[in-house]
């Protein structure tokens, strides 16, 4: 790709304000948001609505049921979103939707809604890479200019750096995503899925005292997480494990509680993530790090990342749950950037895809 004809930045100063609606539904959240790109180059979030499909403890979300949830809630979330934004569908420049990656059925149900709106109102469609959505919204909210990005969610674990119109993946998970690892362990110990399993693990971990040994698997800038999950699940069958977290008597001191396991899981997994992020920062000589994705709300992860960045003379950027967790506004933001560079998705190509790598997207809006 080092040829002289490689693409260059196509984003111009806005000649007028631009408006986009973003629709997201790649996993168990249905989100809709409206963003406005102002004349001075800034962005305004006009509205950002979300509804999460929550399953009972011990259960994950199935594609079919999740798609059904999205179809039902689209009828409420989108109108609420437009009303809050105070604009009409006719005012929009484009309708952005998540093309992938994610779960097939939920993606399709949202794409269908997007197509329908596009045809109804005669608005162009922009298919957006979910990961790029996270990155662009993170950059917009935090003001980080050219950070190393740690993208951590239920489906993705990647260390990303921007280089020549591409978000290059420097490191990633070799098996399961970090959010998936945490969620599945939450299910093992029967934590609630409300508001999210990861949030409840984080709260449990604060009560943990004992660090139990778990496999620590970084390989260069990649990580492997499935071995940790297997290992920590096995610990729930250990004779020292007390599911209720209570000692059986005054002499019962050598015990492992669910809180200890949550604590150990977080400490181990987050250390691995911070380590590969640091390696990428050293590699490209960057001092900024941006954490995006649902797991990015975790305050312990943010704290660890902050210590690392500070020692390198840099800083960490993170967002709160409104923007970390999947949402519609991030799709609107990334989509509108693409739209302003002349990238739209013709109706015939407005498909979705479960596999869509971050590095496949031409990032024409950056230098």
């Amino acid at each position, binding site marked *: 790709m080092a040829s002289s004809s490689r693409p260059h930045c196509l984003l111009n100063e806005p000649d007028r304000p631009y408006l986009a609606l973003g629709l997201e539904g790649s996993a168990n959240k249905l989100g809709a948001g409206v963003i406005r790109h102002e004349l001075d180059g800034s962005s305004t979030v006009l509205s950002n609505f979300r509804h999460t499909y929550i399953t009972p403890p011990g259960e994950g979300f199935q594609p079919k049921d999740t798609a059904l949830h999205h179809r039902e809630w689209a009828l409420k979330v989108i109108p609420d979103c437009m009303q809050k934004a105070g604009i009409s569908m006719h005012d929009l420049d484009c309708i952005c939707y998540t093309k992938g990656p994610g779960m097939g059925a939920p993606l399709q149900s949202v794409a269908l809604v997007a197509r329908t709106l596009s045809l109804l109102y005669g608005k162009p469609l922009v298919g957006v890479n979910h990961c790029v959505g996270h990155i662009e919204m993170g950059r917009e909210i935090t003001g980080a200019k050219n950070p190393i990005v740690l993208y951590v969610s239920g489906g993705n674990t990647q260390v990303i750096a921007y280089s020549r119109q591409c978000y290059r*993946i420097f490191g*990633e998970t*070799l098996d399961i995503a970090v959010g998936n690892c945490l969620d599945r362990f939450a299910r093992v110990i029967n934590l609630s899925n409300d508001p999210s399993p990861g949030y409840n693990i984080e709260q449990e971990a604060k009560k943990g005292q004992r660090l139990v040994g778990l496999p620590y698997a970084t390989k260069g800038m990649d990580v492997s997480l499935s071995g940790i999950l297997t290992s920590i699940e096995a610990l729930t069958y250990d004779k020292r494990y007390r599911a209720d977290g209570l000692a059986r008597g005054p002499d019962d001191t050598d015990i492992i509680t669910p809180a200890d396991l949550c604590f150990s899981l977080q400490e181990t997994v987050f250390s691995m993530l*911070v380590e590969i992020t640091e390696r990428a920062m050293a*590699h490209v*000589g960057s001092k900024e790090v941006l954490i995006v994705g649902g797991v990015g709300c975790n305050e312990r992860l943010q704290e660890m*990342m902050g210590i690392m960045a500070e020692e390198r003379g840099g800083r960490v950027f993170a967002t709160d749950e409104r923007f970390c967790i999947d949402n519609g506004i991030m799709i609107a933001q990334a989509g509108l950037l693409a739209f302003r560079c002349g990238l739209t998705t013709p109706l015939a190509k407005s498909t979705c895809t479960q596999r869509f790598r971050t590095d496949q997207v031409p990032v024409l809006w950056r230098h």
Partner: protein
Amino acid sequence: MASVSLQLISFSEQISQGAEARIFKAQVTSDSKPVLLKHRFKKKYRHEALDATLTKARVAGEARTLLKCLKAGVHVPQILVVDASEGILGIEWIEGQCVRKLLPGGEEPEEGEVDPPSTGPQQSLDEYGLTIGKLMELIGAELAKLHKADIVHGDLTTSNMMLRHPSAFTSSTKQDVPTELVLIDFGLSFVSTLVEDKAVDLYVLERAFASTHPDSEPMFASVLQAYERALTAREWKAVKNRLDDVRLRGRKRSMVG
């Protein structure tokens, strides 16, 4: 009281700092040869107990790989100091130059390199009695020995290979060149019998060549030729085929989003 090996570091000259470790040039006794100390310093973001265990395991792992290399006849620095609890590994200081700086395009300081170490006057391959072609042969032969011993380097670049300076190369062997190619920095190495891991190892080097040295294709082709000569036809075919696969898909396996 500070530990003895930290005391040794405090008497030493810092050469560079990476994400994982600081590198020092040290002297264990006042009249012995210099030692390169690699100090895996404490990571404050990590839980203290976890950090201690990890640091120790990594120093141990790197030392074990080096010993395995030495026994397999792979040219690596010899080990001179180990203090695993302090995260310190001391190895032979190699007088010479890293391969990157001896090849076209390698003069610029590396990305992330803090202070380009003062190497004095520019050294050239002539000084080492080598042509580029001969150097590529040395690289290929060394990598073949490494992989035949089921050791995967994990971070092959032209920066992680050094040539001993002829003035500091005193082996009394029947060598046709007055130098020796030495592989360094085994911090990401591991033992593996998998063809996949060996192919990725070569691919990482190929990418490093391409990104650092202009017109690197014929150079890397010579590396592979020498590598091939040291393997059996069957071994080579397996690695070659897998390398072609890896080239198509990149270092990463394609995966579900």
